[in-house]
């Protein structure tokens, strides 16, 4: 009341400024969403509606592209491969990474500090420096084009990520939790799995889902380590996007692109609350 009386012009202007700010923010959001909207919209177009100037906004939607591409055996098999690899590497990295993160946060280990620094450094390793030897080793062992090879390869960037996020998460938990459990006769493992894991479920789940998303969209290792049998969707999309022989194959691109984006968006929106927290922690503590 008094503040308003003291500065009436300033308050009115700031209220107007607030509206402008909000409008600008919403506009920015719409601009950023447009390419995804355009992809989804185009995926329901027939070929002749895609190639028009000016671009068509209204048309009779058709599922033609989806039907024709899902019938192609390689697309559906690659989709299944991508699911296997994303789920497999997500599960493996959350188990190994969360246990290691707990060890870094709570257990006194000789050399834990060094390990922490090494993990931090490993986040800077360019994947291309790993891809060349991985390919050569996998080839000499005869394990190229197998799901497990790709799953293990993805662990190189997922485990450090999970370790670091979960370390921060475990550090934030009160120490008394597992101490009292261990006094009551629980082993270290028992305390971890019976006490720590259940209360950390939200953090574990969101970290795992984000790991799966990272595995879902990975291209380099998939390109190098697979060729036919275990090949993933990003490899197919790279092929379609770069396919200049058949002209621009936008129908395929938009349909396959939409299929890969939808599950990820659903997952990400489900865990967005924890995701933002995790990202913020990862950025400020990592």
């Amino acid at each position, binding site marked *: 009341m008094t*503040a308003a009386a003291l500065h009436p012009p300033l308050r009115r202007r700031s209220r107007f400024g607030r509206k402008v*700010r*909000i409008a*600008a*923010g919403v506009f*920015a*959001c719409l601009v950023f*969403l447009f*390419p*995804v909207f*355009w*992809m989804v919209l*185009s995926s329901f177009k027939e070929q002749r509606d895609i190639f028009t100037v000016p*671009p068509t906004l209204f048309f009779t939607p058709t599922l033609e592209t989806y039907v024709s591409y899902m019938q192609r055996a390689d697309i559906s098999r690659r989709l299944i491969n991508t699911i296997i690899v994303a789920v497999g590497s997500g599960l493996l990295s959350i188990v190994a990474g969360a*246990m*290691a993160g707990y060890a870094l946060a709570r*257990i006194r*280990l000789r050399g834990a500090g060094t*390990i922490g620094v090494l993990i*931090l*450094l*490993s986040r*800077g*390793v*360019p994947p*291309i*420096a*790993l*891809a*060349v*030897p991985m390919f050569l080793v996998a080839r*000499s062992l005869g394990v190229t084009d197998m799901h497990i090879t790709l799953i293990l390869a993805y*662990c*190189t960037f997922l485990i450090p990520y999970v370790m670091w996020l979960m370390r921060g998460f475990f550090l934030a938990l009160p120490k008394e939790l597992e101490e009292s459990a261990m006094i009551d006769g629980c082993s270290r493992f028992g305390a*971890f799995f019976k006490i720590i894991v259940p209360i950390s479920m939200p953090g574990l789940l969101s970290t795992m889902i984000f790991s799966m*998303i990272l595995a879902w*969209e990975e*291209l*380099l290792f998939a*390109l*190098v380590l697979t060729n036919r049998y275990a090949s993933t969707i*990003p490899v197919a*999309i*790279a092929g*379609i*996007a*770069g396919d200049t022989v058949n002209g*621009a194959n936008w129908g395929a691109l*938009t349909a396959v*692109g939409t299929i*890969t984006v939808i599950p990820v*968006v659903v997952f*990400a929106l489900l865990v*967005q609350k924890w*995701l933002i927290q995790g*990202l*913020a922690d*990862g*950025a*400020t503590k990592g």
Partner: protein
Amino acid sequence: MSTVTAAGARRARPRAWTRLSDVASRWAFMGPAAVILGAMLAYPIFYTIEISFSRFDLMTFGAVEWIGFENYAHVLDDYRFWSSMKVTLVYLVFALPLQIVLGFGIAFLINADWRGRGTVRALFIIPMVVAPVVAGGIWRMILDPLWGIMNWVIGLAGFGPLDWFGDPNLAMAAIVIIDTWRWTPFVVLIATAALLSLPRDLFEAAEIDGAGWWSMLWSITLPLLVPIIAATFVVRWLGAVKMFDIALAATYGGPGGATNVINLFIYEEAFRSLRFAESAAMAVIVLVLTMLLTGLFLFGTRKLEQRY
């Protein structure tokens, strides 16, 4: 005498045993991660280093002979290596600051207290989770010189159609636009979380002192955000030096190597030209440079945190 030592030993053995099993159970937590990272991360790095110093035989498909720095000399002599390093540098210099500035700017806009804030924040996740290769593909469609919607929009504003993927500078701009589109939301989310964690009373005090919106932004918000901006920069830097998929899907390094970022170039040299030794040498150079610069940035971030 002997009975005492025997009893002592009997007592000591279980104690040593429990200590051993305690150490084992401690390391068991680190075990799985250590084994996987050792086999899949440490070993390949050492193998890369070995290959980079060797002659690579395509018949046996392995390193055969130690030849010292010969591969490195070849690489440093190759003008294509330098030009793709330059391309990477240009991309980093344009994309990173653009993403940080846009990200914090938008976060500032959507941070006003209103009902839709949560929804807008949630929607900003979407571009971030679109696979980079899909992002490259969609934008290839949007920026298409003939049928793309971007040129149509530009045409409405009275500008001529632009040949986005035919002109070297425009192709570079396209890569920066695509990367910025995908990564700005990430910065927005971090910045939003950071803005929400700022102490409220400081702003209330400043408001009572009659500080305007602009001076509050300039002398309170920004200084408080400096450590987080620096940390965001380091995280984005770590992602950006690995950029590969967007360039592959959008331009495949073209036209004429104008967008051939170093990771794409090394990939091509290794898996298309089968020059594994030279690409290993390049990978080692990139690895060392990345590590040095990352260390430098982390050091700088710590320094900034101490100052503010």
